[in-house]
């Protein structure tokens, strides 16, 4: 579903992604972990067509980037630590707006359905700026899955949330967003990542230095695997 080869991203003289290779099969949930500045967010911005690769092959859902960006965008949902929501619109107005941008069929019904899925139907008429950070993040998930994308990109979705809000977010992610989709998530929260993902890739200095399936890790083995991977890199 996602196929990346020899990806290089430069900002001026600085090389952020260095001949990176990355593959994700359909239905896989890959957690991308790595230190600050490793290139995680830059990589997700390239996958989401917000940034262009300097060199290299990037293919998402059968379409290559940046050439077929519009086709990729139609099949992509993104949740980041920013909610990408308008505070002066209500929850349902936000979803109606994004639904129009994605030309979602039977939009009014779909908006109600998504609000129900993320547990915000009772707040559909409230302004988003009155929502807690956790509720905004749940609505952000609703926005991301509104057009039923094949691929979901999660860029540190737990940032700024308290424990309860994180638990609730994980529940929504597991029950609603993930099922049947291909997911790539960046995270610094190893415990939460281990509860969600089916594979872990360690990104360091612009390339994947280690990868392991979740079923080969002990329940609290991700931290040790991460440290080992960075030391060997």
């Amino acid at each position: 579903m996602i196929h990346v080869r020899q990806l290089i991203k430069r900002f001026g003289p600085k090389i952020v992604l260095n001949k990176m290779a990355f593959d994700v099969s359909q239905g896989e949930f890959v957690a991308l972990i790595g230190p600050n500045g490793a290139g995680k967010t830059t990589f997700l911005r390239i996958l989401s067509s917000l940034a262009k690769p300097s060199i290299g092959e990037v293919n998402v859902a059968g379409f290559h980037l940046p050439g077929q960006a519009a086709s990729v965008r139609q099949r992509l949902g993104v949740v980041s630590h920013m909610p990408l929501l308008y505070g002066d619109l209500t929850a349902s107005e936000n979803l109606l707006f994004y639904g129009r941008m994605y030309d979602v069929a039977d939009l009014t019904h779909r908006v109600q359905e998504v609000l129900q899925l993320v547990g915000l139907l009772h707040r559909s008429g409230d302004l988003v700026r009155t929502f807690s950070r956790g509720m905004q993040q749940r609505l952000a998930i609703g926005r991301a899955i509104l057009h039923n994308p094949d691929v979901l990109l999660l860029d540190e979705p737990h940032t700024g949330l308290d424990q309860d809000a994180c638990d609730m977010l994980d529940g929504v992610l597991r029950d609603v967003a993930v099922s049947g989709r291909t997911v790539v998530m960046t995270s610094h929260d190893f415990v939460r990542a281990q509860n969600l993902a089916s594979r872990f890739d360690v990104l360091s200095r612009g390339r994947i230095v280690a990868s392991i399936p979740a079923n080969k890790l002990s329940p609290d083995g991700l931290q040790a695997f991460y440290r080992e991977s960075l030391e060997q890199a």
Partner: protein
Amino acid sequence: MKNNANPSFIKTMLAVVWKDLTAELRSREVFSAMLIFALLVVLIFNFALELEAGTRASVTSGVLWVTFTFAGTIGLNRSMAQEKDRGCMDGLLMAPVDRSAIYLGKMIGNLFFMVAVEVVVIPLFSVLYNVNLLKPGLLLVVLLGSIGYSGIGTLLATMSVQTRTRDMLLPILLFPVVIPLVVAAVKASAGYLQALPMADIQPWLTLLIVYDVIFLSVAWMVFDYVVEE
């Protein structure tokens, strides 16, 4: 349920306009800031210049356009800052739409805010300066000037909002570019106020229309490159 169609240009543009107007109707953040600033400028010039009847017609059009351009800059900055501050610009850019439709939607929203301020300012200006601004020709000049200003202003605000010094950068980028437009608007407005023959006003009106077409076309064509990272 899978939906692989991309929305049409018009549908996208209208969605952006609807979003901007709905949000503004709730917050009145852009309109209030522009209006208060415009009223203050009108009042300050009124007291500062103490115009005599003879000089009023020649100075009024300049004061009018200083008011509109300064207030317009505030509106442009705030309108784009709302997109940037909550990451909403990324949300727009990730949609599978023609990005020039996003530009045109934002531009129409900014034009609407500018015209809304002008609708309030022009009658007040007429009373304070004791000149009749409610002339169809003059109103046409105001509309043409506002279209050009919003057109290029929306593009430059999209660029400046990416920087930390956006409030300062936008006027620095915008004012040199719109000088020909503002000069044409001031001259054409003065022509209507001084009741000059149409032959004297026509060249400035033509210049305004030409600049509108050029600004809108260029902004439309380059918007995709401006928002590209």
